[in-house]
């Protein structure tokens, strides 16, 4: 980047997150920020999941989305971030951070079908 600051809203929020093997593992749905008024603010992590994403919706839409899809949220420590380009690259593997496919109901259904392992 040829600028001396990081625009969190434009260069981090909503960007694709990939693990150390370049496997997509979500979007930056929100940011965890620590600090108090008058003190220095610090980005402590990126938030991924339907919980933080739905918090950005208007009230009625937020309630409906959370009733239907839940409030799952995974916090990835900022120290995990290694590269910020058009995507955010993490140091670890998706399953070490709780962001892999195997946790979804879809995985149980799809992996039980014939040929699910074959490219």
């Amino acid at each position: 980047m040829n600028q001396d600051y990081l625009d969190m809203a434009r260069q981090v929020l909503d960007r694709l997150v990939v693990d150390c093997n370049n496997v997509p593992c979500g979007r930056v749905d929100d940011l965890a920020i620590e600090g108090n008024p008058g003190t220095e603010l610090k980005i402590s992590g990126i938030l991924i999941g339907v919980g933080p994403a739905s918090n950005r919706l208007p009230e009625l839409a937020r309630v409906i989305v959370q009733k239907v899809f839940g409030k799952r949220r995974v916090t990835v420590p900022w120290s995990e971030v290694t590269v910020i380009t058009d995507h955010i690259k993490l140091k670890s593997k998706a399953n070490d951070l709780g962001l892999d496919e195997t946790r979804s109901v879809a995985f149980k259904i799809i992996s039980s079908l014939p040929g699910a392992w074959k490219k």
Partner: protein
Amino acid sequence: MKKLLEIFLSILTAMGGFVEIGELVFAVNAGAKFRYSLLWVVLLGTIGIMVYGEMSGRIAAQTQQPVFYLIRERVGYAAGLGTLIAASAVCLLTCAAEIGGIALILKLLFGGPYRLLVVCGFVFLVLAVWFLSFQWIERVFGLLGLFMLVFVFAAVYLGPNWPDVAKGFMPNVPQLETSHEYLVYGYFCVALMSSIMLPYETYFYSSGAIEDGWKPSDIPMNRIIVIIGFVLGGLLAVGLVMMGAQLFMPAQIEPQLPGTAALGPIVTFGRWGMILALLGMFFAFGGAAIENALSGAYNLAQFFGWPWGKYRAPKTASRFNLTWIVIFILATVIIITGVDPVQVVEYSIIAAVVILPFTYLPTLLAARDKNYMGSHVNGWFANVLGWFFFIIITLAALGAIPLLIITHGGEG
């Protein structure tokens, strides 16, 4: 040599995959109602889809970012989510209409209860997507969809008035009897344009570029495929309008079913004309159903950042794979209720116009961003065409729903 073969096959698949049930119905009806006077809309729509198809393919090859990555990044989460919901609804409805179209074709070919044939169509499509690779899906359905060329040959065989055909390519409004007929003409302009520029085409094309592993060095190939493939695809649409004008207008028939459209090749080429037309429609509708189901899954996966793509083993992209299966199931349920697939596609095409600006604006903004595209950024010509078509589709989006209501879906 291998590259040339790849380009040749890609052009043919782009051409064979150009027409789907909505375009077939609107194009033949446009000819039957307004003779050749809507050919300029086919030309305009074909240039429009070439402009945005080229941009989305170029962005994907350069940045590995398909359309729904861009939509969320460029318009934000809430507006992006709204576009996602609307785009998913359009993909679902279009997929439902295509499955209904497949069942109608199967009924004409083999007979049998309609609902059972809907289920057969569903099973065939799910098995095809599950077991075929992305490249084979493109090739089987794209190449066999080329049987649709029989409609172009039929249109030429029926002896068109070539000077009048040529005049139809100039923007015009024909002399009509009542003001209401002018509104119907306006409705057909919007619907025909939308059926050619359906948003799923750019979702599928840009995601397909990544499925095919395109790199920046493939950008010239992208341009060749779009220019030649879409122009030839546009010719299919021109052939359908001409056939409507020459066969159905003099007989005062308004063909509302895909099977009626097949009368053109039947009248001109007899039994073989019928078989080729029905096979062409079967594979064209099948290809479009698959493209819509996969586009719905691509969009969802790209918006939420899930692993996606046919190039991955299904269990490593399980949410993506479950999504397209669910889209096929829901689309089949919609059609099994007995709704008319042609009416479904009419509504989906008008809904598609409304989301076109939300799909194309992020694409245009990304393609003209030098920081993002580097040396492959839009030139002045692509920018002028991009903004021109953005204005056109925005005007079409504003007029679409009022025209649908006032003209009762173009029925006057």
